């Protein structure tokens, strides 16, 4: 993989009891920051990334040399305005960008942990990330925000730490992974595990990783991030650098070539075992489980202001699931705003240049910060 020395991380010394029962301590958690923490320490925003994201939300990612995943939303003058806010972008445990994960080297065997790494949950991720507040000596965050799995972390964070964030912005997410979500993740995992190079997760030793399986997982997942209309408008039945069908299994269509490219580019920056672990964490996510199926109880006593956002063409985490969150919040009289943003760009809308989304979010944060 890549050189991970440029990565900022904290070492969490305190033992953390995971949902699976195992206890971990002295583990690394990677993060990045943007903007400056003010004297009152009241301008901090903690952002959480999605399944395949990392802590490099803005600017150029030093490892991949590509733009940060939230470049449209985070930076000077953007929605998360780094001239005004101090943004901490937290990586997740289980990831492959410097945090404790399946590619962490086991000091005793001198091999990557692989599937010896414990199965983690969104709850575990958030409990690990909470240590960043202690590290920066921040009493209360102005906001927590994130899309997709990042949104699930937002919900889990405010449920676990109800007084630690003034504002919560869960975007394009759910309070409980649906059967469809689990099914799609399982498709990705089976694809990785069917790759002969996976070797029960011990592939690092052989220097041969399950790239084919991971690429197919990414291709399948990528389709779920887009909308039918978006795909049709961008690709339709357009052919890839040819005048007619070739009567073969080459990538005749542009959409095929595009997906192959997405798959191939992904394996350069992501670890197959991390993909297994993080999708598992998402599947295990059900915020109501601890509260007898009552989502409202997950937010009881919360003084946090919620701004829930969904997108019209998102069929992976559809508006109805965001509405369930809103309904649960209204049932306990929480302070909640909600809008479904019109966009043809599918689930990926939260990452893209969608002016209604970015403009509303920017103004919401800045007017709420003033109050």
């Amino acid at each position, binding site marked *: 993989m890549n050189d991970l020395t440029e990565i900022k991380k904290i070492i969490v010394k305190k033992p953390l009891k995971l949902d699976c029962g195992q206890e971990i301590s002295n583990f690394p958690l990677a993060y990045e920051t943007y903007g400056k923490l003010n004297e009152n320490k009241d301008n901090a925003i903690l952002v959480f990334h999605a399944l395949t994201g990392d802590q490099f939300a803005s600017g150029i990612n030093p490892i991949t040399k590509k733009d940060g995943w939230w470049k449209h939303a985070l930076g000077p003058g953007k929605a998360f305005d780094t001239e005004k806010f101090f943004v901490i972008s937290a990586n997740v445990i289980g990831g492959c960008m410097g945090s404790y994960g399946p590619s962490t080297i086991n000091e005793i065997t001198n091999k990557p942990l692989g599937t010896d790494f414990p199965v983690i949950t969104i709850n575990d991720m958030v409990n690990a990330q909470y240590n960043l507040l202690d590290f920066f000596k921040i009493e209360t965050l102005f906001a927590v925000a994130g899309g997709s799995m990042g949104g699930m972390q937002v919900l889990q964070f405010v449920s676990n730490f109800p007084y630690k964030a003034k504002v919560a912005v869960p975007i394009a997410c759910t309070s409980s992974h649906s059967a469809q979500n689990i099914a799609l993740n399982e498709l990705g995992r089976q694809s990785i595990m069917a790759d002969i190079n996976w070797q029960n997760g011990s592939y690092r030793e052989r220097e041969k990783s399950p790239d084919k399986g991971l690429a197919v997982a990414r291709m399948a997942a990528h389709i779920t991030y887009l909308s039918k209309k978006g795909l049709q408008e961008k690709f339709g039945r357009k052919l890839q650098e040819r005048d007619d069908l070739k009567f073969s299994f080459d990538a005749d269509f542009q959409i095929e070539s595009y997906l192959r490219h997405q798959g191939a580019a992904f394996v350069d920056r992501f670890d197959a075992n991390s993909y297994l672990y993080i999708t598992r964490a998402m599947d295990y996510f059900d915020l109501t489980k601890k509260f007898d199926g009552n989502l409202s109880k997950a937010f009881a006593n919360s003084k946090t202001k919620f701004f829930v956002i969904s997108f019209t063409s998102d069929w992976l985490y559809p508006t109805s699931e965001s509405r369930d969150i809103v309904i649960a919040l209204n049932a306990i009289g929480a302070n909640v705003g909600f809008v*479904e943003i019109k966009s043809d760009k599918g689930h990926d809308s939260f990452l893209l240049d969608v002016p209604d989304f970015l403009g*509303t979010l920017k103004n919401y944060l800045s007017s709420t910060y003033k109050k």
Partner: protein
Amino acid sequence: MKKEFKVISELIENKSKALDVGCGDGELLKYLLENKTKDIRGLEISKESVQNCLSKGLPVIEGNAENDLMQFPNKSFDYVILSQTLQAFLNPDKVIKELLRVGKKAIVTIPNFGHWKIRIKLLVNGTMPLTENLPYEWHSTPNLHMCTIKDFFVFCEERDIKIFKSLALNKEKISEINNKNLNYKNLMSDLGIFLIENK
């Protein structure tokens, strides 16, 4: 209509919890926030308006009053406000019922179709009246169920809804409506403002 906001605001007790149904761009919510109570919410059907409200930091949710009031528990607000929107619903009866379920009290304002100018327009021109408050042609109006101040009185009476206070607004002038002056106020007022509660 700023005067309407002022009248509504005066009907509301300090520090109470209020929901504005059909809050538009949040002008009333903002007025209440600055003058009356911090504990406000809004429900609005237009995405663009919801985005404008959220941009001002107002806690507004996108939704349709005819379906989405259901999510609020019984008596979860001290006041539920419906400003000049009743006439636009498919089923005003159901909406009023929901307002009185969700709110301990409701404040309903209605553009008065009984105003003399409107009556004269229909009488003299023989066409559907257009006014400053009701500027839509018959074929493109969102207003499905126009009513008069008197109609609303009868409506409440028939349903055992208690009218705590009824006010008439004409231009900038505000006055009380009672059983004695009802016909006169019904003729002279632009807007009726009612504070109601289930008996």
